């Protein structure tokens, strides 16, 4: 892929970060400062999911996220092509690092396990997504398809993510894998269920 024409600020960042002397050190320090500010801003944006007691831990987590993001940015500097400003490109790394850590922090004291009672709860404790289906026959068909067409791992991922609202990166950490891998399991499970529900007359087939 070709590098696009860069705006002046992005070109300056690249030049300084590729410098072999003091300009690089100065650019790294400025970039780390920016990443810490962005991580803290993301924590503020997500404060509704955090307990007030966890403020110090969250700040440590933001600094760690910024440091890990900085390492990723420096390692991937040659992949920057200029389709967005350099700072936007760089900030995506810290947003991903910080948000994953914040989600995991918010879930650290909660268990993730396959809970088949989730299908049989009374309306006030039922998963919101099932309540929205508003149709016992449809829920029954979905439950049957989950039980008969998914592997145990697919059932765990599907029920955790879509019904118990476990974030994919929290589940990935518990399963010792990556968010992308968890999403692939979810995607495959959904495709199987769509096929089964299409055959049962409830859904349309997906295109991929």
């Amino acid at each position, binding site marked *: 892929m070709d590098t696009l024409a860069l705006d002046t600020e992005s070109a300056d960042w690249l030049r300084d970060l590729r410098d072999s002397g003091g300009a690089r050190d100065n650019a790294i320090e400025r970039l780390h400062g920016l990443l810490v500010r962005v991580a803290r801003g993301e924590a503020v944006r997500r404060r509704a999911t955090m307990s007030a007691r966890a403020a110090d831990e969250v700040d440590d987590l933001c600094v760690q996220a910024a440091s890990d993001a900085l390492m990723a940015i420096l390692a991937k500097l040659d992949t920057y092509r200029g389709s967005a400003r350099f700072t936007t490109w760089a900030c*995506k790394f810290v*947003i991903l690092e910080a948000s994953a850590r914040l989600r995991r922090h918010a879930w650290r004291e909660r268990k993730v396990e396959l809970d088949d009672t989730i299908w049989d709860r009374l309306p006030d404790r039922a998963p919101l997504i099932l309540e929205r289906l508003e149709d016992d026959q449809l829920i029954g068909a*979905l439950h049957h398809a989950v039980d008969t067409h998914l592997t145990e791992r697919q059932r765990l991922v599907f029920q955790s993510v879509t019904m118990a609202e476990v974030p994919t990166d929290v589940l990935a950490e518990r399963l010792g894998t990556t968010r992308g891998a968890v999403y692939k399991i979810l995607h495959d499970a*959904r495709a199987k269920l769509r096929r089964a*529900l299409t055959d049962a007359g*409830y859904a349309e*087939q997906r295109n991929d």
Partner: protein
Amino acid sequence: MTDHRLDAILGTTGRDPGCDAGLDFIDEYCEIVARGEAVPDRFADFLTHLGNCRACREDTEGLLAVVRAQENRESR
């Protein structure tokens, strides 16, 4: 019979490239949205993924907030 209520639980039917491929688009997409421009068709698969993946949707909202804050500072 088609029941679109199932899309929320099964995902939509468009092509979904997954989380890792979506990462390539998130920065450019946020700048386009922040400028208020129409999102080009080449983002269709990425948008399908955003519709299906809550974590990527949250991350995109986070980056969009950063881009908008930067544009607001520059326009002052």
